[in-house]
């Protein structure tokens, strides 16, 4: 059993080594080094931040939703959750969470799945998987669609995605040096 585990971070965002606003509907890709802390802030409320993680040294190893939920015996992510890779290693640990519950089963919306879910005419609606592919292409270095595992981590987690599908807003990402 795992309820919402609300924990505030002691880190000061003013001291972050990197700070950027991600506009609604835009991809963002970055390397987070071992020992650093990575924070995502919902700036306007009700935002989703679909997220994929890869081992920066080996893109064949990536975040696995199934291994993550099975390892903790719970489908929701919150403080304390270890984000497990496809090879069974811990990629990141959630150490602070003021939302309390994040979804990892909904994946990311795609033009193709939106046609199935909402109507064939929805093909041209903006979709997050377009952003993932765009980010992977811009990054190069061997990242491509086939390595994503079809999964995505969604922060925060509202399983009723259809309620907010027209409400893409912006999020802020920051990266702090660790003290480890």
């Amino acid at each position, binding site marked *: 059993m795992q309820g919402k585990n609300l924990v505030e971070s002691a880190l000061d965002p003013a001291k972050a080594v990197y700070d950027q606003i991600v506009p609604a509907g835009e991809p963002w890709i970055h390397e987070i080094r071992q020992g650093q802390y990575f924070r995502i802030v919902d700036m306007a409320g009700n935002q989703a931040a679909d997220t994929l993680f890869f081992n920066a040294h080996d893109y064949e190893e990536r975040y696995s939703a199934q291994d993550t939920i099975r390892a903790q015996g719970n*489908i*929701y992510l919150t403080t304390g959750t270890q984000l497990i890779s496809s090879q069974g290693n811990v990629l990141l640990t959630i150490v602070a969470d003021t939302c309390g519950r994040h979804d990892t089963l909904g994946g990311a919306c795609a033009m193709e799945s939106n046609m199935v879910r909402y109507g064939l005419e929805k093909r041209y609606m903006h979709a997050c998987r377009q952003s993932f592919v765009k980010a992977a292409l811009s990054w190069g270095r061997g990242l491509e669609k086939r390595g994503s595992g*079809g999964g995505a981590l969604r922060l925060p987690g509202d399983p009723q995605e259809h309620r907010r599908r027209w409400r893409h807003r912006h999020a802020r990402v920051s990266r702090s040096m660790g003290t480890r």
Partner: protein
Amino acid sequence: MAAEDAVLFQDMVQPGATWSHVLKRGSALRITDMAGGANVGAVFYNWDNLIERYNMPDTLKAQHIARLTSGCVLYSDMGRILCSITADTVGWHDPLSGCAPAALVATKYGVARYQEHRNDYYKNAYDGLVIELAKYGLSVRDMAAPVNFFSKVEVDDDGGMRFISNHSKVDAYVELRAEMHVLTILNTCQHPLDPNPKYEPRPVHVSIRQTTPPGPDDPCRLSQPENGRGFILTERYFL
């Protein structure tokens, strides 16, 4: 359900083994639990374009489900249907839990190597599936989120996952109708959340039959509007 007299091929998949076949569009694969308590980890790829493959999140959210049974379909990441579940005497198949890697199997059951145990050595589903993938030119990065047929994992209101033991009975079966040419890879290792402390994978029987294409009144097509659109996109693919 396909007719009994139309069996084109049948075989037993041994406990802990991996089996693969390119299931042709218009044929149906029946998987039967021979001993009760079977688990079958399964991944699916479009044989004509292997980077299109079974997508767990798209399958679940398109059909508003967290378990698979008859009337459900398996979606690819391209909005198309790989397989439809046309018959099911089990009632619940687990799409959530993934498969056990070698480390988990060693932790739960210990290590039994070929060196000492010959063909009774302990297998794990992850290695079985990725070895089979490699035979088709695919690598570990191509590993999809597998379905666990014959297994049931309930989720409570707080998100807690619970494996239900003794879920599948002897002779229970599930039947998949291929809606495109589908590289199908099955593995009969135990479910990763199975609390049984013993290494006891079970065998399954597989059989392939010719089947009729899904008509306008097909139950999988009509189970919800999303699947109607999924069939349209799949049929367009073959124009």
